[in-house]
Structure formats: C-alpha cells, structure tokens
C-alpha cells in the first residue's frame, strides 16, 4: 500500500510525463521545423503564461491496429482555459508530437467538451490546429470525433467568437473545422489546409502540385479565401489572435469591449477635402480616407490578401468598435465581384451576430462584368451582400464618397436596405446607372437625329452628369440624410454612431433566414 507521499510523487511524475507530450526528441523535431509545441503556444497566448489545463489524463480506448497499450499523453491535444488580456477564453491546442496530433475519439471528445464549456460560459473559443489528420487506426470512431467537432462548431456559431489558428497540417476533413469557425489565422510556410492533398490529386487527376502551392498560407489567403490572416510564425499568429479578440465581445449578448472615455473627438481633417481626385476616373487608396476617419492605429484589416477590391476591417471610433466595409478604387476599379461579395457578406453577418455596428464607405462603379462572373453565379453571390446588410439589425451607417451606381450601390448598404444614416460627400455620384448608359437610353432619338450625333452625345452625357451624378437627387428624396464636407466625416460618424447605441430593430420570427449559398 503506497503512502500519501508516494501518491503525491505519483501525481508529480504523471504530470511531468504528460507535459512532455511525445517526448524530448519529438519536441526537438517540432522546434527544428520552426514550430512551437502545443504547450508553448498556450503559454504565449494566455496572460502570464497561466492557463488551467483540463482533461490532461484522458486516455484513448482503442485496441485495433497496434493501438492497444499505446501511450498517448493527453491523447494529443491540450485543452484548457485562461485569461487573454484579462478576458476568459477557452482553447484547444493540438500536440503534433503525440502521434502526429492525430484525431481519435477521445482527442475529439476533449475538444468538444471545451467547446461546450465555452458555449455555456459565453466565452470565445480558440482552436490551434497542428495535426496529421484522422487517427485511421480508430476507424469510424475518429470520424465520429470530427463529426462532433463540426457539430459543436455549428452550435457555437454566432454565439461565441471562434478563432482558428492553423500552425501545422490541417488536411482532409480536418480543414472543415476552421472553415466553420469565424476567423482563420495560418502560419506561412508551415500551416496547410486542403481536402485532397497532392498525392490524392496526382492519383485522381494527374495534376502535380506541391502542398504549399495547393493549400499553403498565401494560396489560401489570396486565392481560395479560406484564410483571413497570414502569420509569420507561431508567435505572430498568437499575437494576431489576441489583437482580434480585443475587438470582439465575449459572446453574442454583449457589446464589443469599449475603450470609450465618453467623449467624442470630432476632429476636422482638411486633408479629407483634398483626397478625392478631380478626375472621376482616377483611383486613390481608400485606406487614406479610412485612416483619417477612425481612431488612429485602430484599423485591423481582415482578409487583406483576398478580393482586394473590397476592404473589410475592424476599427474604433471614439473607442467603440465598428465593422467597416469599403470599396477599394485602386483594385479592380473598386467593382464588386464574386469574391468581394463573399468577403463582405460574411463579415457583415459576423458583425451582426456579435453586435458590432457597421460602417460602409462607398465608391463603387458597379459589378465587375464578365461571362466568367455570370457563369460563376455572381447573381447568387452578389445577393449575399444585399441579404447580409438587409438582415443586419446593428446600427448601419453609410458614407458615399464618390461612385454609387445601381445595384452595386444598394449592395453597399443603401438607405432602402435599412441603413440608419447615409451621408454623401459632394463628390458623390448616386445614380441608377452611369451617364453614358443612361443617355443612350433616354436620348436615343435626339442623338440619332442630331447633325453631329457624337458631339450631341457628349454634350448630353456632360449635362446628365452635372444633373444626376450628384448626391442631390438622392438627398431630395431623403435617400441620403446629409451631404457633408469631407473634413467633417469623423464628426458625422461620431454623432451617428453614438445616437444609434440603443438601436432596437425587431424582425419577424424565424429559425433562420435563407441567405443564398
């Protein structure tokens, strides 16, 4: 019979053993590959390196394919909770040193338990992915594991923020979990996500491609749109996650964390009066406007590598968090295409779910034309933006900087989609279509019958532009509630945002809307 002292010693040893994960050698290999261990990542993520680990003594129960008796500390995933900048956050951190971080039933169960706790506590959940995938030896049980994880991701969706860090492989079905979460941060050169890997693809289609080219950070962020942030390394990924969290409420019943002092800083910025070029064809960098409107240094861009013609970012205005959607005239003419629609609409949905007011900054010439866009379903995808903005019940404020034509303008949250406030700069061109198109329809006969049709056309276009491509037609009908001097934009937004703090918008009861997918 062992003494109490011996039992205490036993606990010490067990703890030490589990802490080592797959062992010294595997830890060294992890470091050599430029990766931190599961524990090291958590240590960096949580305040003062403190986190309360749960379920560390979990053991797998599998016996087939050589699994019997196999020692897998914590079954390859470290789960726990702690404070990040003082706020409660739950995490799961896969341990690549333990059987490649493979997912068996108990591994998945731990993750689901932690997610369930996050759900009940109303606290954010962060998943650090670093795993070779399903533990094939456990057969259907590993599938059960993944299935449950996806189920919980869906359960938590829109209730607590979910952030996924891909700091290693995340292949096959595993990639679905990050896709179901709200934001994905991937470590460049190390993180990889794909459903079918290079070998599978080579066998099936004969295409030859490297893992990095197929599902590495750059491709996923800029091409496929599955990744929202690219991190230089583990430490950077963690910092991104911490910064992101600082903009988000703990759960959907709370407002985002405010740094407001109660004062509104209504600074006039003369530079804004000079930013828009005289020639309406000239682009400019939308960020120069955004940086002058929002609190300095608070703009946190999301998906910066994807659909660059649309900017989505978090920012603060007088300390209050806002979600910003803006066109970028310097990319693809600022037009909206399929990717831009997906990017903007998902962001809008996220902000709406988490009580983050939306500010839309508009300079859009239209939808990007093209057979490829049509066949790709721009109709379905563009509709998502209209849906997301219409359905949003958070405060919605729009500022029209320059171009605002047709359906593309509506998609950027026009008054008729329920925008609470819409301001326009004097440079705004709000019209159902551009002057050229309009004149061709309205003055067809006049142009045909003119002595010099080309000249007549040019004259009419100029005249139409003067009269209609302005904010005043819209203002006359109340579709715009103010035409403001650019330098006063911050002041306008500050007052608007403050006055909408207590906004209540009731909608007909439903399980959920049916956004076009």
């Amino acid at each position, binding site marked *: 019979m062992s003494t109490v002292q011996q039992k205490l010693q036993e606990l010490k040893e067990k703890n030490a053993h589990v802490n080592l994960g797959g062992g010294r050698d595997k830890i060294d290999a992890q470091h050599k590959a430029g990766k931190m261990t599961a524990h090291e990542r958590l240590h960096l993520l949580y305040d003062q390196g403190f986190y309360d680990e749960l379920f560390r003594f979990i053991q797998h129960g599998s016996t087939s394919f050589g699994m019997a008796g196999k020692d897998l500390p914590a079954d390859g995933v470290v789960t726990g909770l702690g404070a990040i900048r003082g706020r409660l956050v739950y995490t799961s951190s896969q341990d690549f040193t333990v059987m490649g971080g493979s997912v068996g039933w108990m591994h998945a169960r731990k993750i689901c338990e932690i997610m369930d706790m996050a759900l009940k506590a109303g606290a954010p959940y962060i998943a650090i992915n670093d795993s070779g995938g399903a533990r094939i030896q456990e057969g259907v049980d590993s599938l059960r594991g993944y299935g449950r994880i996806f189920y919980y991701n869906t359960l938590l969706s829109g209730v607590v923020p979910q952030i996924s860090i891909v700091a290693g492989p995340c292949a096959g079905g595993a990639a679905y979990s990050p896709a179901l979460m709200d934001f994905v941060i991937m470590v460049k050169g190390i993180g990889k996500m794909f459903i079918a890997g290079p070998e599978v693809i080579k066998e099936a289609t004969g295409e030859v491609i490297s893992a990095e080219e197929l599902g590495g950070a750059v491709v996923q962020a800029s091409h496929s749109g599955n990744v929202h942030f690219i991190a230089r390394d583990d430490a950077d990924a963690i910092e991104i996650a911490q910064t992101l969290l600082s903009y988000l409420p703990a759960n959907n019943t709370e407002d985002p964390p405010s740094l407001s002092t109660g004062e509104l800083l209504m600074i006039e910025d003369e530079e804004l009066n000079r930013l828009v070029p005289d020639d309406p064809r000239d682009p400019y960098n939308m960020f120069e406007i955004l940086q002058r409107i929002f609190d300095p240094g608070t703009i946190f861009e999301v998906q910066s590598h994807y659909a660059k013609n649309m900017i989505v970012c978090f920012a603060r205005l007088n300390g209050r968090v806002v979600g910003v959607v803006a066109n970028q*005239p310097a990319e693809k003419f600022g037009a909206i295409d399929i990717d831009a629609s997906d990017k903007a609409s998902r962001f809008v949905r996220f902000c709406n779910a988490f009580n983050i007011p939306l500010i839309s900054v508009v300079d859009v010439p239209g939808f990007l*034309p093209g057979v490829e866009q049509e066949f790709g379903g721009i109709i379905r995808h563009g509709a998502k933006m209209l849906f997301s903005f219409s359905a949003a019940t958070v405060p919605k404020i729009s500022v029209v900087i320059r171009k605002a034509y047709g359906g593309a303008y509506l998609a950027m949250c026009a008054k008729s989609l329920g925008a609470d406030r819409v301001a326009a700069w004097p440079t705004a061109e709000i019209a159902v279509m551009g002057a050229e198109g309009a004149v061709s329809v309205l003055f067809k006969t006049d142009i045909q019958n003119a002595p010099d049709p080309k000249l007549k056309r040019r004259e009419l276009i100029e005249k139409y532009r003067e009269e209609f491509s302005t904010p005043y037609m819209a203002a006359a009908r109340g579709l715009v509630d103010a035409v403001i001097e650019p330098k006063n934009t911050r002041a306008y937004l500050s007052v608007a945002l403050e006055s909408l703090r207590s906004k209540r918008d009731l909608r007909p009861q439903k399980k959920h809307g049916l956004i076009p997918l």
Partner: protein
Amino acid sequence: MSDQQHTTLVIGDRAYETSLTKKFKQRKPYAPLDPKKVLCVIPGVIQKVYVKEGQRVQCDDPLFLLEAMKMQNDVLSHLDGVVMSIQVQVGQMPAKGQVLLEFE
C-alpha cells in the same frame, strides 16, 4: 446535363463507372503560373504603357494603365526584374489571362 455515356472516375484509388458533367469535363487542369509573365486579370482598355523593354522595374512599380467602367487602375509589377517583352499596346483590350508583359 450529365452525359449519359458511362466512363470511369477514380476516387480513393478505386475506379467507379459513372458519367461526367459538362462542367467537369471542361475544367482546366492545374498548370503552374509562369512567374515571369504578367497576365491580364482585370478587364479594360490599355491607356498607357509606363515601361519600356529592357527597363528594370521593382515590385509594385506601375506597368500599365487600364481603363474600364469609367475608372482607371494601374497594373503593378509583382516582382523585381527587367522587362523583356511588352505584348500589348495602347488602345488594345486584352482578354482575361492574356500575357501583357514578360520579364527576363
């Protein structure tokens, strides 16, 4: 409409007898992009050519000015290099994917 003629599709190392969709048959297999080529990604008419053959450029230097939808956008270089050949001229409307410029 799916083609009713049955053919084989290999999934998971097993060959299934099935039919293929038109979309599937028309898909372009992956071919790695030549980094030395600048392709046309946005529609438009070439308004200006900023560089000359033999000129050395840096990443993000403007190469062309494209105009469409009553807007103008610059096509920027994605690498540091020397311009080898310019394959379009002012007034042209390149097709998507067309080579605009090649680096050495």
